[in-house]
């Protein structure tokens, strides 16, 4: 594997988009109302679309002939580079919505910045994604407010979700050896630069939602270097089943 930092970086973005997109697709047919079923399907589609473009780009960077399908279907969990937040179980409706909000509030300003990347393909993918993430942010923020400022039960579930997911939020803002040189070169985004925007969005929405922002305690990390929770393997067993059972199958 031509393991360049740019390949790793692009893979991280792609895996995060794919895993979250797959998580959202799990709701299709199970949502509490049909409008939200459509919403999850649509948001999942956006994310999987972003992942496809990113995988194609990663495959070209690597230059070993791997296409989007090879990268998505033929790597095992330790080779996946997504952040841990997006592989967390869907839980109840509030848990999925709060997870979507935490990610979208980050991804929107992040892609806005990445749209100015020196890597023209990453910039183009980001310029499309930012428009999509604006809708994800608006939708998930509205639901976070509605649930938090709703009934006692919906408030409790939203607050529980926020408390449980909070330890996974710090990973979004981490940088490491892989990214530092790319940030210097104007290719990757320095996530600390979007932290203030994320904080502001959270403070605004959480206060409207009457939810309490958890304190930073022990924060989880490791997804971006391939150390995952047990959930990812289960996701991949479903996502990759057809390609594993019938290698090379296509239609």
């Amino acid at each position, binding site marked *: 594997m031509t393991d360049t930092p740019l390949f790793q970086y692009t893979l991280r973005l792609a895996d995060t988009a794919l895993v979250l*997109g797959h998580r959202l697709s799990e709701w299709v047919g199970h949502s509490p109302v049909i409008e939200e079923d459509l919403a999850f399907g649509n948001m*999942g*589609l956006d994310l999987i*679309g972003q992942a496809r473009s990113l995988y194609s780009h990663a495959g070209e960077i690597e230059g070993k002939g791997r296409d989007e399908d090879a990268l998505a279907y033929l790597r095992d969990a330790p080779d996946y580079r997504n952040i841990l937040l997006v592989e967390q179980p869907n839980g109840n409706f509030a848990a999925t919505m709060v997870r979507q909000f935490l990610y979208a509030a980050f991804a929107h300003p992040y892609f806005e910045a990445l749209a100015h990347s020196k890597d023209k393909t990453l910039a183009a*993918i980001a310029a*499309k994604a930012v428009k*999509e993430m604006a*809708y994800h942010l608006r*939708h998930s923020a509205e639901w976070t407010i509605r649930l938090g400022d709703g009934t006692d039960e919906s408030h409790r579930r939203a607050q529980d979700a926020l408390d449980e997911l909070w330890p996974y939020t710090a990973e979004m803002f981490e940088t490491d050896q892989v990214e530092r040189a790319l940030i210097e070169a104007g290719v990757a985004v320095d996530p600390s630069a979007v932290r203030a925007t994320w904080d502001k969005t959270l403070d605004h929405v959480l206060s409207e939602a009457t939810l309490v922002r958890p304190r930073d305690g022990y924060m989880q990390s490791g997804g971006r270097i391939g150390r995952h929770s047990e959930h990812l393997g289960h996701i991949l067993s479903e996502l990759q089943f057809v390609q594993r059972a019938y290698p090379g199958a296509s239609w």
Partner: protein
Amino acid sequence: MNGAATIATDPALRERAWAAAASVCDPEIPVLSIADLGVLRDVRIENGVVEAVITPTYSGCPAMNMIALEIEVALENAGFARPKVTTVLSPAWTTDWMTEAGKTKLREYGIAPPAAKAGRRALFGEEQVACPHCGSTETARISEFGSTACKALWRCKACAEPFDYFKCI
């Protein structure tokens, strides 16, 4: 025959290729052509080969494969052998590219066309959307996401009809 150079500079031929590609309709919204939508970005002829350039509305738009296939068929039928279809992501598609004719067709079809300029839209701002059936602006959003990635679900409080709204991006 004078070869590729002549063909490449023949505007009538290019126009014919454009018209053929532009005749392809969006499979989800059959009243709109891909030219109305702004999905068809360019049609060029180089060395006798026609290349149509398209851009997706949304990253995950599942209609893109179908559209690419239909462009190839339309160009072949118009006499252009082995046409190429290329997908570009940049500049990112915006509803501002939709033609006025396209917006009128959408409205007549029962879909509210994108209202405002997409740029600098306040994230938490409210949009005002006119009902495509009765024209009333007494409307409310049911859901941010509709039957396809590019549409939202609205309803009209005046005529009580639900409708799709082609959302701005």
